[in-house]
């Protein structure tokens, strides 16, 4: 469309949303959308209610808790950081409407941590994220397609891709379970495409494959999955799906006394959430899982220690500190570094540029390096294998973290020697 006025980012982009209200804007004191002299406004869409919400509904509050902590300590160059959460119920169509609200009504500076592959795909296409130049930082999905910088020039991942994860699991299977009957339960969409493609490329052939369509997960459907796995005699089962599907699968297998060696992908393995969804501790005991971060119970870790303090003081009272809270706070920590890197007069272009030039050096709780550069919007790049104990806690497999890194393509899986940057003093970034 054609610009008809003098200034970018003023009332031109104003719109009347479908909800029927007008969001006329005025020229702010600082001429960048979502940034004023004392505030930076950010937005996130995620499922706060509904079947897919368990665990994910804690991420936004965790981010807010960390931002409050930063705000209480001077904010980012004197500006407080505000995060607006929108509940998309995990529905792609609703994600579009909610992101439109964030962009057009709330006029956020950037999106941070938007969750869900189908959700962000639809948002990117229908809201015009790239066309509008809206930074979308730390997408909370591992779909390797988002690494296409040409298609997603303003977006940056945070999780290792599902393909990377599958490659690392594949290597582990070869090294530890050669000759065993292998089974897999996977989500029958881009999540699964990424993973299954990588398993196949790595030469892993599953004896029993169970594909489920997102949205169909329930106890009755899980009963059919477990029946297939048991009937096929799977001795080692990889679960490559979301927590709301992992929980009924594990619960049903416990009830059926079917006890393969479970290997839970990183997405569906938070023990607190699984237990909250009715999974008996006994099933989790001994289950293997991919992890990129330390256990949320590892208080010897400087990041975990700091984040737990923030959680106690700033999060909603009684919020259990789990993988989701840890992930939310870490995204917030990285966001603050990105905002600082964009400088005291942040612009959307400047933020993207800062991500490209400095993003790979950001402090993060994850053990693997970050892949951000001018030609890459890949986030973290590796995982280690962990094992759950009788308390549902997670310990590194073999007693120490052996982190493997790889790419989403044909690159090798290698044992990493990467040294994670230290947590900024008091958990408050001072980078520029």
């Amino acid at each position, binding site marked *: 469309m054609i610009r008809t006025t003098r200034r970018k980012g003023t009332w031109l982009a104003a*719109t*009347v*949303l479908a909800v029927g209200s007008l969001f006329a804007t005025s020229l702010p004191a600082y001429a960048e959308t979502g940034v004023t002299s004392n505030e930076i406004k950010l937005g996130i869409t995620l499922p706060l209610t509904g079947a897919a919400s368990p665990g994910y509904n804690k991420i936004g509050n965790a981010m807010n808790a960390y931002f409050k902590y930063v705000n209480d300590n001077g904010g980012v160059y004197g500006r407080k950081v505000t995060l607006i959460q929108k509940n998309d119920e995990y529905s792609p169509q609703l994600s579009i409407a909610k992101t439109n609200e964030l962009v057009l009504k709330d006029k956020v500076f950037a999106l941070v941590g938007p969750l869900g592959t189908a959700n962000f795909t639809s948002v990117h296409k229908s809201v015009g994220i790239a066309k509008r130049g809206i930074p979308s930082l730390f997408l909370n999905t591992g779909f390797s397609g988002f690494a296409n910088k040409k298609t997603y020039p303003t977006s940056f991942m945070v999780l290792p891709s599902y393909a990377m994860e599958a490659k690392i699991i594949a290597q582990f299977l070869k090294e530890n379970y050669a000759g065993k009957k292998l089974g897999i339960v996977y989500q029958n969409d881009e999540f699964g495409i990424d993973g299954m493609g990588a398993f196949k490329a790595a030469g892993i052939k599953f004896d029993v494959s169970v594909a489920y*369509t997102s949205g*169909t997960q329930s106890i009755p459907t899980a009963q059919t999955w477990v029946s297939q796995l048991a009937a096929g005699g799977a001795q080692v089962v990889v679960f490559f799906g979301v927590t709301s599907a992992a929980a009924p699968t594990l619960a049903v297998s416990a009830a059926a006394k079917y006890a393969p060696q479970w290997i839970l992908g990183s997405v569906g393995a938070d023990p607190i959430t699984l237990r909250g969804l009715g999974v008996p501790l006994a099933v989790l005991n001994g289950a293997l899982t991919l992890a990129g971060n330390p256990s949320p119970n590892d208080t010897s870790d400087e990041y975990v220690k700091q984040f737990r303090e923030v959680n106690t003081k700033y999060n909603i009272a009684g919020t259990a500190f789990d993988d989701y809270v840890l992930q939310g706070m870490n995204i917030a920590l990285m966001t603050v570094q990105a905002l600082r890197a964009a400088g005291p007069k942040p612009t959307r272009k400047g933020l993207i540029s800062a991500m490209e030039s400095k993003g790979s050096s950001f402090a993060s709780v994850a053990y693997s390096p970050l892949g951000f550069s001018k030609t890459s919007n890949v986030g973290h790049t590796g995982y280690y294998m962990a094992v759950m104990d009788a308390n549902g806690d997670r310990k590194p497999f073999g007693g120490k973290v052996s982190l493997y890194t790889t790419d989403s393509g044909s690159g090798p899986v290698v044992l990493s020697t990467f040294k994670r940057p230290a947590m900024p003093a008091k958990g408050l970034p001072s980078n520029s």
Partner: protein
Amino acid sequence: MRIFKFKRSLTLVAGSALAASLLVAAPTVASAAPACDGKFPVQTCGGATSDGAPYAMMVPANFNGTVYLYSHGYRNDVPLPAALSAATGFPATVTNTPQPGPNATVIAALLAKGYGVVGSGFARQGWNADSAIKTNVELVGVFKKQFTTTTKVIAWGESLGGFITQSLAEKYPDLFSAAAPLCMASDVTPLSTMAGDALWGIKTFFDPTIKGGNYSAGAAGYAEAMGDLGKVFTVIQTLQAAFAANPSTPAWPATSKVPDAIKGIPSRSALVMVALMSGVPMQSAHFDSTSAPAGLPAANALSFQVAINPAFAALENVATAAALGVLVTYDFELQAGGAIFDNSTTDYAARIAEEQYIWASALSGNSGTAGLLSVLAASPRAKAAPAAVEKLKTLGTHTGKVEIPTILFTGVADPVTAAGNQQSVADKYAAYYAEKWEAVKKAKGYKRPANNQLVLWNFPLEKYSKYTAAGAPDTSVPAATGTNHCNFTTSQYMAIADLLAYASTTGKHLSGGPLLTKIRKAGNMTYDRGYSAPKLKYYGE
């Protein structure tokens, strides 16, 4: 399993906007001067232009010199059997009754403000852009001659009438002072491709006896087309019953000949595939692809939201697109002299490459998508007659180049003239504007050319699906805003009319706060430079 009893059967949207309401009786023979009734405070005049097209003029006693020339939408150019007429909303007979405005309420409101209104019924129906443009140009002259105080002529129209209006704005800037193509059709080939794809999809998945085009000459061809229309309705009604009986895994119609293995995929997913591959929107009059009935367990609610509700939306919209596909294909073939739909090289997998991730659940996952694509890949394709394709292109296209203020407005989920039609014209104008601005800069000028195009959108609400107390979809409520074809409120029509009047008087669009206030008060009108509607699938997206 939840059993849905629809409160009302799904019907097509054609009736309200495609088939014009009959407003004014007029003579059927051409005459040199209009016959006016001389009534006060509004006199109505009728007559016919030199091509025999009847027209109607309505002019208030306090006529302020500005007249709105309205172009109506597509009307069937062949009679329809009564049952198909009732199902489609198109009249059973071909009608050329003149229509001087969108509806009686809007006409009355314009007359009350001192404006005149005029409209033709056009000499022929079906796709009639070329002849309608000539008719309208002549009609403007007749009106001015009759009402000599006329100072401004504003063109507006809907659907095919939007196409005609845009053409008038492009070709006759001296005749018109402002124009508003509403829910417009743009170029013929992309438009007919969308309808053709929807029809071919229904044929391929659900009833291969549908001919789908390349109709025979004469009466035999007419019988084939009407037969297709009936079969499309049978398929849709069968699917509707199957959806209602078992929304999770609705049965396939008995007429379907897809392999048994494919029938393991719910038929609802095939319908979603038809919508996606043809570019039919995934929000419909009553289904928002987002909500679920209250009271469902959380897991079932999510499934309804992401898998079942979208299938219902596809059902409503594909029904309309496929039925229109029959009518326009038959019409275009008659005009072009042969088969016009060609998907012999269409890569449907590429077409849905991105959307398959968005609608993964509705498509029954990756394996469901792959299975459905395999059917499309293995099915016989339609081949057009090259000469007919070339002829079709001459039936209408837009340059996007306008030198008078024009306002585009459409529903984002219009299933007939998809929003990509409007986007196409907006994109063409943007390119033209960029050219003009470059020329200015090359001449060392600094003043930007005037922006003659104002693009407005009507977005559906986030959630609008209604359910009965029993949890069944309620399709008896009015179509949601932003959905259906040319589904505008009187307030929206009048906002457009007011914006046109302003532009007509000043030569430029209302802008800034006053523009936003205007559209806010009208409701559900969005001005957003950053928004781009999905392009029509013909263009490769």
